[in-house]
């Protein structure tokens, strides 16, 4: 019943190129799309359960210390108030992605401003919100909170690279740069706030929540609650955006669960927008040092990328700033290192493209300065530095389309490879300029299972706990099954986001499509094999198309072969040796044109082209949308997004969407996306790689380089806000 595929060798059979249905890769509209555009998609907070109570979290108004007591009586006589939950099981932080165990509990110990400390439950939301504001508690604030990463103690992360003699290479270089960059913290700011409705029937805890990785979240929740995993069910069929913020079980999930179990009624807990900003993962701010040494031909001889990031005490996650720097460009003398400072800000964790989102823009901005010093066109400089093998591990690369992306992107954008002196183009009070950057994002896969049923009526059902957070999972899993089983996508029903289905790794690290897509593929291969054996045909001789099986010159409707019976298989994809044998990554290139205002320093992105190599494209429409979304994030991280903390009490000052500036419609021009033809059998048996994060891995660097090319302001601090641009703008 279960078919296993262990990925020990690249799968270069390219099966999906030989199937007959012809829907794989097609730009089909999303099957769940009609629900979304008509308001019929139901998100976590939107289930109507009888007798449902409303919970509102109370959070700490200080950054470090101890809650000594909570005065439940201060609110218990307020209208509608049922209970103040202060249970030991409440969680103080959200779990990190793939944590698989409860995050820090004991909410009385406070480590960051805005940490949840209690839940007020009432009959209505308005009553609970009011009571939460009035809840009195006694606390002791410590005086030793640390807010400045530069002033805090730091540790060096494992896995640093020290190779050759970088200092010597810098001295010997024909051209070199030694630059310091900073990036501010980022918030995922998914449009749907974190929300849960928990139900307890005396035996099983059922929670509708907004989560990305149910397979891990169920363990985290069970562990937090002291329940067996078999007594917990999680459902997230629709998730209103995640971007890393919903990788691990969040505080609302556990709080709603505790309350539901204690009160015997369903309990809904929805975080306010401010609470999402204050208590959910931030991307760490970074300071980075880039050292690049090149010979007379512009070939890198030395490569240094060091970063300081931060997190709370006892958190394992450290923003992996140098992740793609390890292999993107050559240079035999290498230093790559990350230090983590321990400070009292909310948990630092994964925000879309952890690592590359901030590491790549700094690297790509430094490459631009190196190109200028070496007198080489920046596209050409990148092309000259694509290494043969992984520069420190010596492993071969799997399929890599970096050069193609740079060339095709340059052609589409109309890149001018002539001299690149700033201030060459002007329109009124605006300087116009262009910039380029490479894109890279490591490829990840995880163990995944999916159940596929070929129904007696010839339709198919795909079931997995995998989530669709806007990424297109419903679309692509249906397309893979339809292609493999020979039917239109409309004949495939895809059920997601329920832990009672076979489990996959969830949505995160861009690994969902390659992992769960492969599980569906493996199940379908097993079904096709069974059909072949029912027909006595050789498996490779069987073709399935539009519900008809063809083999050895014969044809027969699949429903007839099934003869009233269904075939069900569980596909099991297991990562194997290919993960270590190859350096697998998706690649791309960004080209941006900006206008910078001479008087205000405001930057407007006028157009942007992105070319990406993501392995096999499973659905051209949804893949393109992922890339567009990433490029929009490039604009935000280049120009506007930064978490700002009060240096005195450590609170997040801009904890809402009015003050934390995500790009809006008018900030975003039309953008070109090129998907370069590619198959990567080392990446997955469907030859696909991840696409959800690649679109924001470096593009902010292209914008920074375009700002310099436009007006001559060379900035080293992201985001490049008008004040910073003005200050860096050379006098006429």
């Amino acid at each position, binding site marked *: 019943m279960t078919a296993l595929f262990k990925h020990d060798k690249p799968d270069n059979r390219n099966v999906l190129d030989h199937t007959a249905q012809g829907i794989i890769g097609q730009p089909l*509209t*999303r099957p*769940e*799309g*009609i*629900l*979304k*555009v*008509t*308001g*019929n998609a139901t*998100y976590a*907070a*939107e289930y*109507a359960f009888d007798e449902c109570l409303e919970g509102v979290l109370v959070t700490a108004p200080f950054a470090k210390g101890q809650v000594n007591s909570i005065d439940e009586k201060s609110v218990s006589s307020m209208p509608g108030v049922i209970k103040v939950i202060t249970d030991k099981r409440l969680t103080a932080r959200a779990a990190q992605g793939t944590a698989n165990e409860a995050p820090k509990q004991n909410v009385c110990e406070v480590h960051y401003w805005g940490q949840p400390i209690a839940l007020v439950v009432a009959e209505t*939301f*308005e*009553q609970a919100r*009011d009571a939460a504001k009035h809840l009195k508690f006694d606390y002791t604030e410590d005086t030793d909170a640390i807010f400045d990463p530069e002033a805090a103690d730091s540790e060096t992360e494992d896995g640093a690279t020290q190779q050759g003699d970088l200092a010597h290479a810098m001295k010997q270089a024909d051209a070199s740069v030694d630059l310091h960059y900073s990036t501010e913290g980022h918030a*995922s*700011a*998914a*449009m*749907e*706030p974190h929300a849960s409705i928990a139900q307890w029937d005396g035996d099983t805890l059922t929670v509708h929540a907004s989560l990305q990785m149910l397979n891990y979240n169920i363990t985290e929740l069970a562990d937090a609650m002291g329940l067996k995993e078999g007594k917990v069910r999680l459902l997230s069929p*629709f*998730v*209103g*955006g*995640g*971007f890393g913020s919903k990788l691990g079980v969040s505080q609302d999930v556990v709080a709603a669960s505790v309350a539901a179990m204690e009160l015997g009624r369903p309990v809904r807990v*929805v975080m*306010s*927008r401010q609470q999402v900003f204050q208590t959910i993962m931030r991307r760490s701010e970074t300071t980075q040092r880039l050292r690049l040494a090149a010979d007379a031909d512009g070939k890198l001889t030395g490569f240094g990328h060091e970063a300081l990031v931060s997190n709370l005490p006892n958190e394992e996650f450290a923003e992996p700033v140098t992740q793609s720097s390890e292999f993107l460009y050559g240079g035999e003398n290498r230093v790559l290192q990350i230090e983590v400072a321990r400070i009292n800000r909310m948990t630092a964790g994964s925000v879309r493209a952890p690592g590359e989102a901030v590491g790549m823009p700094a690297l790509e901005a430094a490459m631009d300065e190196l190109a200028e010093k070496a007198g080489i066109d920046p596209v050409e400089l990148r092309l000259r530095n694509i290494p043969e093998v992984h520069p420190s591990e010596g492993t071969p690369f799997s399929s890599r389309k970096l050069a193609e992306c740079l060339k095709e992107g340059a052609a589409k954008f109309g890149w001018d490879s002539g001299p690149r002196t700033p201030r060459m183009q002007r329109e009124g009070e605006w300087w116009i300029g262009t910039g380029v950057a490479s894109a890279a994002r490591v490829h990840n896969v995880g163990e995944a299972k999916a159940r596929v049923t070929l129904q007696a009526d010839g339709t198919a059902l795909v079931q997995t706990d995998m989530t669709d*957070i*806007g*990424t*297109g999972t419903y679309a692509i899993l249906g397309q893979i099954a339809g292609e493999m089983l020979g039917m239109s996508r409309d004949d495939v029903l895809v059920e997601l986001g329920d832990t009672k289905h076979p489990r996959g790794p969830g949505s995160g690290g861009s690994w969902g499509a390659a992992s769960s897509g492969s599980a569906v593929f493996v199940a379908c291969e097993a079904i096709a094999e069974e059909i072949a054996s029912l027909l006595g045909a050789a498996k490779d001789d069987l073709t399935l198309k539009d519900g008809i099986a063809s083999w050895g010159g014969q044809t027969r409707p699949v429903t007839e072969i099934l003869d009233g019976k269904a075939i069900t298989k569980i596909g099991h994809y297991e990562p194997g040796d290919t993960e270590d044998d190859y350096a697998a990554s998706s690649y791309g290139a960004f080209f941006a044109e900006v206008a910078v205002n001479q008087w205000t320093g405001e930057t407007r992105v006028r157009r942007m082209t992105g070319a990406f190599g993501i392995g096999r494209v499973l659905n051209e*429409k949804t893949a*393109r*949308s*992922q890339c*567009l*979304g*990433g*490029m*929009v*994030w490039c604009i935000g991280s280049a120009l506007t997004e930064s978490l700002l903390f009060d240096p005195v009490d450590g609170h997040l000052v801009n904890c*809402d*969407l*009015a003050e934390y500036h*995500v*790009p*809006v*419609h*008018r900030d*975003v*021009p*039309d*953008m070109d996306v090129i998907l370069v033809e590619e198959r990567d059998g080392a990446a997955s048996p469907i030859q696909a790689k991840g696409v959800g994060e690649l679109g924001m891995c470096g593009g902010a660097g292209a914008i920074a380089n375009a700002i310099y090319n436009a007006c001559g302001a060379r900035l080293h601090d992201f985001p490049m806000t008008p004040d910073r641009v003005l200050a860096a703008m050379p006098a006429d």
Partner: protein
Amino acid sequence: MPISINHQPYDLPDDPRVSLLDFIRHDAGQSGTKKGCDHGQCGACTVLVNGVRINSCLSLAVMHDGDEVTTIEGLGTIDQPSALQKAFLEHDGFQCGYCTPGQICSATALIEEIRAGWPSDATGDVEQAPKLTDEEIRERMSGNLCRCGAYPNIIAAIREVAETEL
């Protein structure tokens, strides 16, 4: 007088603190309208009140005595989606879908606003009727955030429908 939501009458809530948004989502059980911020900062809660778009989180339900409220559910259905709903689907003008009802309600009102000749920040000469430029659409849609970054596809969908309707 009751409040009408998609032509269905509902009694006003007893609790004056209930926002129009929570009333629609909770009391009226029409959860197509979304809450993204509850502070008028994201546009997810956009609905039409007597044909004009507002952020329903910034308004109290009790202020809408006798008003006709149209939400995403009132614009079209699964079987009979509106032209904008179809265009959003075709152009992939969404990803997670959470901002989408607000985007579509806003876009529906935007077409009427341009038809009525209302100027915006992007309108060069306010004496003249606004033209249906991309910049004009982008400006008028800028109160509707989309963190998934579906903006270029949203504009393509609105442009297509507005061009045929105006």
